[in-house]
Each structure stands twice: as C-alpha cells, then as structure tokens.
C-alpha cells in the first residue's frame, strides 16, 4: 500500500516519521512502550537523588542537585508529550506506571546511601544513559528524536557535574574518598546492566534496529560505556570492582567480567531493594494530588463556561 511504502522509504532514507504519518501498529506500540518507559525513568529517577536534596552538605551542591531534579521533571514532560503524539495520554501512562504494568529503568531500584552516590549516579548512571540516548537523537520517530536532543544536552551537563563532585570528594578527606569508592562498588554493575541483557537474550533488538529506533546492540553500547569509563575511573583514582577488567590490545577495547544477571532478574521482577518504595512514593504523590488536579479541572471548566457566555 502507498502509506506503507512511504513509511519504508522514509526509514530507508534516514528521514523522520512524524505523528500524522502512517506507521505500522507494531512500530507505534514499540515506541509507546519505549518512550513511556523512558519518561517513567526520568520521573522515578528523581527519587534516588532527591533523597539527598534535604541533606546536601553545601548550599552550592544543594542548588545543583535541585536544578538537576527540575531538569529530570522537565525531561519527563517532554517525553510524555512525545508519547502523546502517538495517541496515548499522560494520565493513562501514569496509571500504568503506578499499577506496575509499565516499567522504568531498574537502576533506580537501588538505594542511594551516601552523598557520594549523587556523584556516582551523575558519572555512571547518567553516563550510561547518554551512551544509550545519543543514538536516539537520530531515531526514526521525529518527536522522540527531537526530545532526545534536548535531554542529551542536559544529561551530559549532569554527567560532568557528577564527575566534578567526585573529583572534589577524591581530593577531600579519607572518609570522603571511602564514600566514593563504596558508591562505585555498589553502582558499577547495575550501571552495566542498564544496557539490557546480552545480545543473545535480546530478541527485539533486530526489529528495533531495522526500524531505526535503535542503532546499536546492547553489547555494543555496553562496551562503548566501559571503554569510555575505565580511563575516567583511573583519572579519578577509584577502583572498578571487576577483577576481570583488562585492556585487550587486539580488540582495542577493555575486556570485562559478567554482571550478576540473576540479581538483575530479581530487580526486574520487582524484588529490588527499592521497587516497592519507588512505586509507593509515586502512587502516593498521584493519589494525594488527585483533589488538586480535580480542582484545576473544575476551575478550568468554569472559566471556559464564563468566557463562552
């Protein structure tokens, strides 16, 4: 059919599909799922760092962290808006999040236990997110690609701030250095797992790549992240908790060990240290705010009624 040919041609030409264009149902469903999960991750991702907002040990760090939380809420807004161009609405996606029918990135189901975690999340978690997201700036779906351009710009700013915090702590007291190393020990493996299962266990990758949603396999991105991060760790003076980590001359890359996929499976299944807590918080905010949203709607309706009189 003509619309299907147009779709294929746009994809092949590396151009953008726009909301009014025809698209295969499966393409739409894949995008809705992925963009929603991404939006949910921004919103849930406010919690682990938000945990340190009230306790940030300097006013400057408090301001930086608060600005970051604000950015993340903003990213959530762009991404929900991008998902809405595909014919779903934000309220529906929120319902799916708080009822556990849609996922968010499992990394946020780990606890933040010291202020150094804030830095390590900026460095490793935002770093891994950027590896995942930069290719999405060229994603075949226009609104998503454009949202990602904005998101990536801010994320890399956050990443630099996280690294800068860690540099400061590593130049600080013995206790501060210990905090950083401990945070790295806890976050390293979960960060590697952010790229998803090994390629052999990732059946949807091929289709997503054919649709130019995804550009690289999970293992390619993971390797890119490791190669980028190892020298940064050395510069920082921390040890990555992987005895198998060594430079491979032939591959011109770092070899690294296997993450504990069974722990990831537990977390994905809902048994992570913070799954219940994260969803509970989001649900409580949603439920506690219901009367406020209802009031806003009622007021808007009244105002509309008056202005049309």
């Amino acid at each position, binding site marked *: 059919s003509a619309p299907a040919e147009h779709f294929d041609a746009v994809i092949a030409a590396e151009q953008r599909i726009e909301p009014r264009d025809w698209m295969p149902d499966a393409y739409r469903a894949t995008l809705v799922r992925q963009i929603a999960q991404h939006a949910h991750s921004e*919103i849930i991702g*406010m*919690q682990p760092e*938000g945990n*340190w*907002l*009230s*306790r*940030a*040990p*300097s*006013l*400057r*760090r*408090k*301001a930086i962290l*608060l*600005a970051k*939380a*604000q950015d993340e*809420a*903003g990213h*959530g*807004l762009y991404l*929900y808006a991008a998902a809405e161009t595909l014919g779903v609405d*934000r309220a529906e996606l929120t319902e799916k999040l708080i009822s556990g029918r849609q996922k968010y990135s499992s990394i946020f189901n780990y606890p933040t236990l010291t*202020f150094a975690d804030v830095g390590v999340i900026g460095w490793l978690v935002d770093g891994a997110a950027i590896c995942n997201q930069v290719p999405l700036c060229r994603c075949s779906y226009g609104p998503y690609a454009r949202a990602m351009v904005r998101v990536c710009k801010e994320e890399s700013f956050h990443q630099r701030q996280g690294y800068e*915090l860690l540099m*400061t*702590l590593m*130049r*600080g*007291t013995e*206790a*501060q250095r210990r905090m950083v190393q401990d945070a790295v020990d806890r976050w390293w493996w979960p960060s590697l797992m952010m790229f998803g299962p090994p390629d052999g266990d990732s059946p949807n990758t091929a289709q997503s790549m054919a649709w130019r949603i995804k550009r690289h396999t999970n293992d390619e991105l993971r390797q890119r992240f490791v190669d980028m991060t190892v020298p940064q760790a050395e510069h920082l003076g921390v040890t990555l908790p992987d005895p198998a980590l060594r430079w491979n001359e032939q591959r011109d890359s770092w070899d690294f060990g296997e993450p504990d996929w069974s722990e990831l499976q537990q977390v994905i299944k809902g048994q992570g240290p913070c799954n219940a807590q994260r969803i509970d*918080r*989001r649900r*409580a*905010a949603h439920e*506690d*705010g*219901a*009367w*406020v*949203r*209802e*009031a*806003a*709607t*009622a*007021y808007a309706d*009244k105002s509309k009624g008056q202005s049309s009189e």
Partner: protein
Amino acid sequence: GADLSLYCQLLGDDALILSQRLIEWCTRAPELEEEVALANLGLDLLGQARLLLTRAGQADGTGRTEDDFAYWRAEHEFHNVRLVEAENGDFGYSIARLLVFATARRALYLRLADTRAELDAVLTSVAVRGAKELAYHQEYAAAWTVRLGDGTPYSAQRMQAGLDAVWPLLDELFTAHEVELRLGVDPAELRAGVLEELAAVIAEATLVVPGAAPMARVGGRAGREGVHTEALGPLLAELQCVAREHPGATW
C-alpha cells in the same frame, strides 16, 4: 556592620528555610508541572539565601561563608520567622504559606530595591532581582489559590483551611526586630499594603479572609529572636547532618 549582617541573616534565613520546605515537595507534587514549578521556586529562594548569607559574613567582618551560616549555627541562632519553618501540610497549606510569604517578601524587596533609601548596594541588588523572582512566586501561588478556592467544594474547604492555619503566623512578618528599627526598615509599614493584596486574591478565590489572631510569642520572643517552633529542630537536623558528620570537609 553587625546590624547589616544580622538583617541579611533575618532575610536569608527566611529564604533558606522556606526553600528547604519547598524541596520536600520534590517527587511528591500533584502534577509534573508542579514538580518543575516548586523546584524552581525553591531554587530562587535558595539563591537569595546564598547571596544574603554570604553578604552577612562579609558585612560583620567575620568572613563566615554561606555554608558556615547554614550548617554550623544552632537552632537558636536562626532568625527566620515561624511561618517558613512550619511543616508543609497539604498542597493547600503550602500554597497559602507561599502566597503570604511571596506577597510580603516582594513588598519588602521592592522597598529595599528603592535606591534612594539604599542600605547597602549588595542588598539592593539582591532585592531588585528577588522582587522579580517573587513576582512569579506570588502569581503562581495566587493562581493556585484561585483554582483551589474556586475549584471543587472539597478544594475550597482545604484552601480555606490552609489560609486559616497560616494566618496566625502572618503577624511575625510585620513585627519589627530591633535591628530593623535601627536600620529604618520597619516591616510594619508594609502590613496594610500586603493585607490588601492578599484580600484581593482571597476574594477572587471566593474565600474568606481569616480572622485568626496572631500566634502567641514565648515571653515576648519568637522566630526573629531565635525562639522557634518544634518544627525547626528536625528540619535543621536533616539539613545539617551530612555536613556535620564531616567537619572541615569540602564539597
């Protein structure tokens, strides 16, 4: 001088403590747009607090930094009004407090921004910028006051309850500390204008201006004199705990 320093602490502490309360809304707001807005308000106030406390440490010659003031003073050394330290309550209470604070503080900043009566050039510049920021805070709070007051019957009841609960704390904003009298910036002069602005918003929200009397002081003392409510201690314990666990550390 010492008076200017103390005055900067009065204003800086108000901004710091209310910013800390706004931060608590983060990940708890009724809507994502409110997450963004409340964080933004918190950032503005935090920014004002940093400038004011930094100025306080310069003005008295002690060279204390913003962090010395925020993290290393005891509760009785904080000079904020009791209004800003009260727990957040529900969204209606938080909006009511924000409305009252932003209206009063903007009026004060506008007066301090008047260079004909300049106390201090740094303070003037904080006030000029702060008045612009607070105009947005005031608008935001007024818009929500009206939406909730003229929304559903339930929201009207909660917004009214928020105003009623905040009202006894209003008085302290207009009760001069001795340093304010010495510097010639008696906040009592702002009272009538602020109450008028508040009454207009409350009327638009189809609510009633509360008649509640001011909260009693303790032997004549209140927040400005370092006599706070039971809400401040736990707030400070949280604010200060990491910094105090690592004395002398740089972040």
